[in-house]
C-alpha cells in the first residue's frame, strides 16, 4: 500500500498518513517512540524507517505532479513533514533532505528534472546539501571549494562540512567557486550523483557526535580533483548563489513543520503526565503554574501553525514576497517552539531529564532533537539579517492597497492555491508584506460580515481593538525605517536584531488575525469562536512587543485548558485543523 493521499485538503492528507502510521506510543508501529529511542541510544542511522517511507511511496510528495510525483502544495508537504517529525525528528530530518530536490525543480533543465524525478521515484534516491565549509559556516560566498573547467566538464576540489547525509546519501548538491573574480556571480551549483563519481576522487568525513539527532548522518565530504560532467551543472555557470538563496526560501519555511511536529509531541507527552499524575491531592494539570505553562504551550502551537500554514501557502500566491515570509517563518516558529518545549520541562519535573521511563524518554529526545531546527538551513541570525536588510526599502515602498484579493488565497485553508511557479521566487521582496499591509482590509471584511460571525460581539470588539494596536505598531515600524540611516553589510547592531525580532512578531500576530478572519466559518467550533485569538495576540504582544495584557491571558485559561483536554482526549493534533491522529 502506498501513502499518497488522493484527497485535496491537507487535513485529509494528515489523517490518511496518521492512520497508516498509527500510534507512535505502540512499539510495533513504524517510527514509534521506542524506535526513536533505539536509534538515539545506539546513534544508528534510521535505515529501516527511511526504507519503510520510501517503500510506501512517501517520497512522491516531494516530486511535482507533472514529473510523476504528488507534490501539489507546500502546505501539504509541510503536513507530511509534521506527521513524521512528531514521531521521530531524526527520521523526519533524514527523509526530508529530499526537499533539496526543489533546487532542481527551480533551476534544472527539463532533462535534469526528469532524471531527478526518476531517481527519487524509481531508485529511491536520497540527497544532501553540500554548502557549508569548516572555515566559512553561513558565509557561502567565501567558499574555498573550487570547480575548474576542463575539456569534459569540471574538476571539483574542496571540503564540505558539516553536512547532513553526506555519507548515507546518493546525490550531492555542491556549491563551488567557478570564478574567484566574479563576486556573487562566481559561484555555481552542481548536482552530483555519487554513483557516477570515481571513489578515488572523493571521500567522506566521519559522522560527528551531536547533542540531538544522534541517529543522523551528520558528516562531510571531500573532493580532490574530482571530475564531474558538464551536465551536472545546475542553472548556468555563476548562477549558484542565486539558486542557493532561492532554494533556501523553500526549505526554511518547510523546516517550521519539523518544529511543529516536535512541539506537538512535547506537549502531548507532557499532558499525558499532567493528566494522570497527582501532587498535593490534585492532578498536575489543575495546579495553577502547570495549567499556565500548558495553556501557553497550546497557544504557542496555534500561533506557530497560523504562521507556518500561511507562510507555506504564500509560496503559491505571493512568491515575490517569499524572501520575507520564509525568513520570518524560519526565525519565529523554531525559536518559539524550542522555548515552548523548554518551558514544558518544568511540568514534567524529573521525567523531563530521563532517557527512558515516561513514553520511552521521548520528551528529552524531542528537546534535544528540535533544538537544531533554529540552527540549520540558515540560522536565526542569518534570517533576521536577511529581513533587516529589506526594512528601509519595504518601508519606502509603502502600502499599495492591492493585497485584499490575495489575503483569502493566502489564509483561507480551504481555498485551493494556484500552482506553484518557482521562477517567481525573488531574492528580495519586490512587494510590501501582504500580512502586515493587509490588516485593514481583513478587519473591514470582518466588520462588513458580522452577520456570519461566529464569535460574540464583545469578542469581536476585542479582536478589532487588537487589530488597531497591531496596525499602529506596524506603522511605527515603517516610519522608523523609511528615513533611517541604513547600513548595508553584516555588521548590524543589536538594536537592528531586536527590530527584526519585533517585525517577525508583528507578522505572527497578523498571521493569527488573518487566519481567524478567513477561516472562522470553516473550522472547528473552538477555532471559530475566536476564544484563542485574543489570548494568542496578547501573548505575542506580551512576549515580543513589551505590551502587556496579563488579565486577558489569565481570563482565557479555563477555556484554553478545556479545549486542550478535549483535543488530547479525542487524539487530535494541537493545530488549527485539529486533524485526527493515528491510533492503535
Amino acid at each position, binding site marked *: 500500500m502506498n501513502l499518497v493521499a488522493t484527497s485535496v485538503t491537507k487535513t485529509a492528507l494528515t489523517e490518511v498518513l496518521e492512520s497508516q502510521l498509527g500510534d507512535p506510543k505502540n512499539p510495533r508501529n513504524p517510527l514509534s517512540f521506542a524506535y526513536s529511542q533505539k536509534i538515539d541510544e545506539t546513534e544508528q542511522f534510521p535505515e529501516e524507517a527511511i526504507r519503510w517511507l520510501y517503500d510506501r511511496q512517501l517520497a512522491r510528495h516531494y516530486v511535482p505532479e507533472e514529473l510523476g510525483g504528488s507534490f501539489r502544495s507546500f502546505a501539504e508537504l509541510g503536513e507530511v513533514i509534521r506527521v513524521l517529525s512528531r514521531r521521530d525528528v531524526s527520521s523526519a530530518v533524514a527523509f526530508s533532505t529530499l526537499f533539496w530536490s526543489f533546487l532542481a525543480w527551480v533551476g534544472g533543465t527539463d532533462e535534469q528534472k526528469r532524471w531527478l524525478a526518476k531517481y527519487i521515484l524509481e531508485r529511491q534516491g536520497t540527497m544532501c546539501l553540500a554548502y557549508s565549509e569548516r572555515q566559512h559556516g553561513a558565509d*557561502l*560566498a567565501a567558499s574555498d571549494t573550487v570547480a575548474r573547467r576542463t575539456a569534459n566538464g569540471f574538476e571539483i576540489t574542496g571540503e564540505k562540512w558539516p553536512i547532513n547525509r553526506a555519507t548515507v546519501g546518493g546525490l550531492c548538491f555542491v556549491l563551488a567557486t567557478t570564478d574567484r*573574480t*566574479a*563576486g*556573487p*556571480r562566481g559561484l555555481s551549483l552542481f548536482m552530483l550523483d555519487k554513483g557516477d563519481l570515481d571513489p578515488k576522487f572523493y571521500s567522506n568525513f566521519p559522522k560527528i557526535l551531536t547533542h540531538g539527532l544522534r541517529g543522523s548522518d551528520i558528516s562531510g565530504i571531500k573532493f580532490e580533483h574530482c571530475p564531474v560532467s558538464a551536465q551536472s551543472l545546475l542553472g548556468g555557470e555563476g548562477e549558484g*548563489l*542565486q539558486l542557493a*538563496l532561492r532554494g533556501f526560501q523553500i526549505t526554511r519555511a518547510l523546516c517550521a513543520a519539523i518544529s511543529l511536529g516536535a512541539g506537538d509531541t512535547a506537549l502531548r507527552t507532557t499532558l499525558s503526565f499532567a493528566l494522570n499524575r497527582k501532587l498535593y491531592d490534585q492532578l498536575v494539570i489543575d495546579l495553577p503554574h502547570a495549567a499556565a505553562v500548558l495553556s501557553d504551550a497550546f497557544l504557542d502551537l496555534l500561533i506557530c501553525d497560523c504562521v507556518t500554514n500561511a507562510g507555506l501557502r504564500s509560496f503559491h500566491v505571493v512568491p515575490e514576497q517569499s524572501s520575507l515570509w520564509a525568513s520570518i517563518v524560519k526565525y519565529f516558529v523554531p525559536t518559539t517552539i524550542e522555548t515552548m518545549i523548554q518551558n514544558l520541562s518544568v511540568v514534567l519535573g524529573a521525567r523531563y531529564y530521563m532517557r527512558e521511563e515516561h513514553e520511552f524518554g521521548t520528551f528529552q529526545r524531542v528537546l534535544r532533537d528540535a533544538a537544531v531546527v533554529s540552527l540549520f538551513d540558515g540560522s536565526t541570525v542569518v534570517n533576521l539579517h*536577511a529581513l533587516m*536588510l*529589506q526594512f*528601509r*526599502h519595504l518601508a*519606502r515602498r509603502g502600502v499599495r492597497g492591492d493585497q485584499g484579493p490575495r489575503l483569502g488565497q493566502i489564509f483561507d485553508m480551504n481555498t485551493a492555491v494556484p500552482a506553484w511557479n518557482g521562477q517567481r521566487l*525573488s*531574492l*528580495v521582496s*519586490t512587494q510590501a508584506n501582504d500580512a502586515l499591509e493587509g490588516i485593514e482590509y481583513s478587519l473591514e471584511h470582518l466588520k462588513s460580515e458580522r452577520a456570519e460571525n461566529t464569535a460574540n460581539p464583545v469578542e469581536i470588539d476585542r479582536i478589532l481593538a487588537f487589530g488597531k494596536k497591531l496596525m499602529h505598531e506596524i506603522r511605527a515600524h515603517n516610519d522608523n525605517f523609511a528615513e533611517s540611516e*541604513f*547600513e*548595508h*553589510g*553584516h*555588521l548590524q547592531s543589536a538594536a537592528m536584531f531586536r527590530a527584526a525580532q519585533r517585525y517577525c512578531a508583528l507578522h505572527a500576530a497578523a498571521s493569527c488575525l488573518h487566519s481567524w478572519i478567513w477561516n472562522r466559518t470553516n473550522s472547528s467550533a473552538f477555532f471559530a469562536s475566536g476564544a484563542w485569538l485574543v489570548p494568542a495576540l496578547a501573548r505575542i504582544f506580551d512576549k515580543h512587543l513589551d505590551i502587556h495584557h496579563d488579565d486577558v491571558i489569565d481570563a482565557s485559561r479555563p477555556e484554553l485548558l478545556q479545549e486542550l483536554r478535549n483535543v488530547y482526549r479525542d487524539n487530535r493534533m494541537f493545530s488549527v485543523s485539529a486533524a485526527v491522529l493515528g491510533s492503535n
Partner: protein
Amino acid sequence: MSKAKDLNEMQEWLIKRISTSLRVKNGMDPDAPFSKYGLQSIDAVILAMEIEEEVGVELPPTLLWEYNTVNECASYLVKIGSDIAA
C-alpha cells in the same frame, strides 16, 4: 527630468551613492569589486533596488552582481540611458 549623465558623471554619482551606503571613508577604486567594500550578496540586491528607484529605468535585481565594479556598473547604466536626478 534631468539630462542623462555621461560616463564620468555616472561614475562620480555611483561612487558617491555607494560610498554613502557602505560608509566607505577613503574613496573607492572604480575597478575594484564591490565585495572589497563589504557589499555582500543580498545587500547588493537591495542597493540595486534603491538605485533603481533613483534612476529612470527598471534594473535587474542582480545589477551589482553582474556589473561588479563602479566602472562596469556606470558603463551599463549609461548604455541603457539611465536618467539620474542630480
